[in-house]
């Protein structure tokens, strides 16, 4: 069974979001997504300062067999990226909700259309 922590928000595209006190949104892919991808061997992250609209492809995670787009869960600007993934993309498999996070976004507006842990669990069941 995939892990779905209760303190996070989710998208139907299998990303998780954690909103900090300043309103910034930390984003990664879910345990279910990393398991489906299998070994992540390459990650392409956006540059800091890039702006995306909700639903834009903002990053790519590649396994041996396939490349998967990671979509911006909210419109906004990239304010942090996880540089460690360049050397160690496998962190996404090892710790999808922890050191395997991907980007931090400063959103233009508040988050809508997100799923809570219970709805996300139903989605992947």
């Amino acid at each position, binding site marked *: 069974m995939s892990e779905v922590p209760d303190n996070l928000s989710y998208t139907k595209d299998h990303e998780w979001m954690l909103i900090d006190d300043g309103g910034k949104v930390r984003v990664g892919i879910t345990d279910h997504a990393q398991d489906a991808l299998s070994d992540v*061997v*390459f990650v*392409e992250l956006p540059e800091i300062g890039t702006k995306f609209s909700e639903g834009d492809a903002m990053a*790519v995670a*590649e*396994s*041996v*067999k396939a490349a998967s787009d990671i979509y911006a869960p909210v419109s906004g600007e990239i304010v942090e990226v996880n540089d460690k993934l360049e050397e160690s993309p496998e962190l996404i498999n090892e710790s999808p909700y922890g050191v395997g996070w991907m980007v931090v976004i400063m959103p233009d507006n508040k988050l809508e259309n997100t799923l809570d842990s219970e709805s996300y669990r139903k989605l992947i069941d």
Partner: protein
Amino acid sequence: MSLRKTPLSKQHIELGAKMVDFAGWEMPIQYSSIISEHKSVRETAGIFDVSHMGQIFVRGPDVVKFLSYITTWNMERQKDGDCRYCHILNEKGQIIDDTIVYTINPNECLLVPNASKIIEIRDWLLAHSNEFNVTIQDLSDLYFCLALQGPEAPRLLGQHLNTSVNSFQLKKSSDVIVSGTGYTGELGCEIIGPLDQIEFHWEALLDMGAIPIGLGARDTLRLEKGYLLSGQDFKGSETTLETNYAWVIDWDHDFIGREALMSQKKTKYSKLSGILLEDRGVLRPGCPVFYNNTKVSELTSGSLSPMLRKGIGLSYLDLDIDSKITLEVRGKHLNARVVRTPFL
């Protein structure tokens, strides 16, 4: 059309395999992960269910003459028990399939064509056998094939069947044929035998510690060694010379396609070349290849080498070794160079 299943389907699923359609067969692509399975084969021993591969027996007094005419290799040079990798060509020198010919005895040979080519090869053999005293029997549906590969494979084979085989040699051991062949570049063997015995061999080798390996790692293992994948690196129009496999040709005998190859030899043609990505990234089949800012080709194969941790690929190119090229991946140009294969 429903997919054909190997007799080990249930076992694969119980081992956690993800099953996919491969050449009309439902086969395991991976059990744990492609990277860890790949490393198991390079470092210990892995076992592959490759029962989708074909087994075509050719028997009769003209077997050696016939298969010399059909393949790029002169089978007169084979001794009993020799296995030979070669190509089967059409009159234009284009590869229909690559196969290993097992010389069991002067009157009996076994061909192991790729799953998607079994019928084509069988029909090709039948169509060209009129002048030869041979019989052709496709027993692909009645035989299994397991590949045991990796540095620990010879030890496991010894433990399992109390036998050993040299590279490209075969031995009969009770009902099975054990050959020093494979598709990984490692030590090891392939075991071919009647279908009802597959479970016995599979279970025994797993019990002894062989790791089950799916087709995903089979592909990365073969690509690191520069081995051709039928239907991908050649798909109908490519010749043996173009695949850069001239070493499988014995020019001193008559075979279908020889004249075409002799003419091609005098011309300039693109050859399947190794590509090593210098920037970070993963290569995929179809990826455009650029030289001096001009698109010159596409990748036929591409992946990430789990051992080198670099993108590797194959492409038909007319460029020298060490030529600098770029590969277009998602609109960006990544730096790469032409290298000799094997990559590893």
